[in-house]
């Protein structure tokens, strides 16, 4: 049997593996380059060697510029977490709801490509088309880490299909991505005590029981200490709505906890990391220019169709993740 100390040491050892791998890779690539250099003077092998030389130089540069720095980034504490995404239409009325429906499909398409299982937990579709709001579960490790940067206000600029005069509209959709907390984990993290939860069930007055068979399954939970309240009515049974509501509540409380921990860590540093406020406008989708711009990293790509209909979103998700890692490194350097 291994003791807790052994397990800790093994874990540390395991965590150093990428460092060793990167170093071995660096050494072997450098050795290969040295050997290739000697061949450059050989008239018969020169052309082949110079090709090889360029390739190896590129590999070495890549290792220095990308792989070594990536090792310095502390491992994510939330790497194992799935994600819960809430989308709400903002300004722009039904056009915002139409765009929300398109964004929902955009995110649902990202899931299988990333190895997550997506499930629309709740949605309010409008008679006229579009979706007023939605809650989606993305199950799988890495989902929260990748999607958390989607939190914020997304802005769409286009001529709505419903607009007769051809006038350009600006509408918004607010996205909030929360860590998805499983029942067992909620308990482990001690996110709430049942005594602090007020459970309300909604129904018109009456005898209940055998006297009625109308489906009235809506549930509202309120976490009294924080005032966070979750209402769920999408499912046909009390039990299911209650479970869903507890899951959303756990996710919200987990988010509060993660934010608090992050702020505590930050407080110990000299400089402030740029914070992502949920009310910040993070991205613009401009249809006339076929352009998507991420305002946080100043990245503009003329690939709107690919973002909405294919795998273009991945470029933004990766770029923001990279930016986050770089800013983490800058922080560490500043602390020296």
């Amino acid at each position: 049997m291994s003791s807790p100390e052994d397990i800790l040491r093994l874990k540390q050892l395991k965590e150093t593996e990428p460092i060793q791998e990167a170093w071995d890779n660096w050494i072997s690539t450098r050795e290969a380059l040295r050997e290739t250099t000697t061949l450059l003077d050989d008239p018969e092998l020169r052309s082949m060697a110079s090709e090889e030389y360029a390739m190896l130089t590129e590999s070495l540069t890549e290792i220095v510029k990308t792989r070594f720095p990536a090792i310095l980034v502390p491992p994510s504490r939330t790497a194992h977490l799935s994600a819960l995404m809430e989308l709400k239409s903002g300004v722009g009325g039904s056009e915002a709801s139409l765009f929300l429906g398109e964004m929902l499909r955009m995110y649902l398409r990202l899931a299988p490509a990333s190895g997550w299982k997506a499930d629309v937990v709740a949605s309010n579709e409008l008679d006229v088309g579009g979706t007023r709001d939605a809650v989606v579960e993305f199950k799988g490790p890495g989902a929260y880490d990748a999607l958390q940067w989607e939190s914020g206000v997304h802005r769409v600029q286009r001529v709505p299909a419903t607009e007769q005069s051809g006038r350009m509209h600006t509408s918004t959709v607010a996205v909030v991505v929360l860590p998805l907390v499983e029942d067992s984990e909620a308990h482990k993290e001690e996110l709430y005590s049942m005594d602090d939860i007020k459970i309300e069930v909604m129904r018109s007055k009456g005898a209940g029981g055998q006297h009625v068979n109308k489906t009235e399954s809506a549930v509202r939970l309120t976490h009294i200490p924080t005032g966070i309240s979750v209402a769920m009515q999408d499912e046909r049974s009390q039990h299911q709505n209650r479970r869903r509501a507890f899951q959303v509540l756990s996710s919200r409380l987990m988010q509060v906890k993660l934010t608090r921990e992050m702020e505590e860590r930050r407080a110990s540093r000299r400089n402030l990391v740029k914070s992502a406020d949920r009310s910040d406008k993070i991205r613009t989708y401009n249809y006339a220019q076929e352009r998507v711009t991420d305002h946080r990293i100043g990245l503009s790509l003329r690939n709107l169709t690919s973002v909405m209909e294919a795998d273009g979103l991945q470029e933004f998700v990766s770029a923001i993740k990279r930016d986050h890692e770089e800013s983490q490194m800058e922080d560490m350097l500043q602390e020296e």
Partner: protein
Amino acid sequence: MSLPLLSARLGKRQAALEYKWMKRATSPIPLDQMLARRVAGEPLQYILAEQPFGPLTIKTRPPVLIPRPETEHWTIRLAELLHPTATPARPLSVLDLGTGTGCIPLLLCHLLPAGSVRAYGVDISPDAVNLAAENAALCGLSAPADPSRNSFQPIQASFLDPNFPHLNLGVAPPFDLITSNPPYISWPEYVRLPPSVSHYEDPKALFGGPDGLDFYHAIAALVARNDFLNPGAVVVVEVGDGQADSVQRIFKATAQMNTEIWLDPWKKMRTVIARPGI
């Protein structure tokens, strides 16, 4: 075209929800037919032919009583109460009186440890017994080749019959747990029931005699018999609005039992728990 009619009938909010559930349903019935039936007053649970009950999906079919949220709530609570002591070493013998869809024993079987429950349900209605058997099969809980699993077996019989349970019926006392959601609606209430209940659901599952208490008298007399219950047994019955006190008195007077009342999520006294007195 039927959606505005549905809104007029149910209110906009409820109509939107039900419309979504109908759209989402895997039913072979076309959406416009579902809407038309709902507008005509048929319960949604019969149109969709199923109702979630705890984590289970229970098949529903007229005229068998549709599982109610109050019943779901107390059945889950009962499973939580039994869970710490339920063990395959000594399986609980469970009898559900007036089993209907079989929802109560099926949910208990589902929530309690494997092999810890042998459940039986009786109903006078062949429609109910057939449906309960289908539900047992759908939940993978049909009786009982494998003692390492929980099982539920529905049986057609009248528990009002003085000879119940007859020899060779396939179920015999003593029992550890009696559950029942018996018919509890009184005459004056019966005539005022909403049509979605009285026009579609089986009167035999609803009407509980002039004061709605007939079946509680019968159940109390049954469990008061010698050797009907094991030591430590529990009797759990759902009651109608305002009946809890009367039902407590019946179990105390007829069977000398100690009683307790559970509230439903709407704070109504919904369930009477009775245990044999010392």
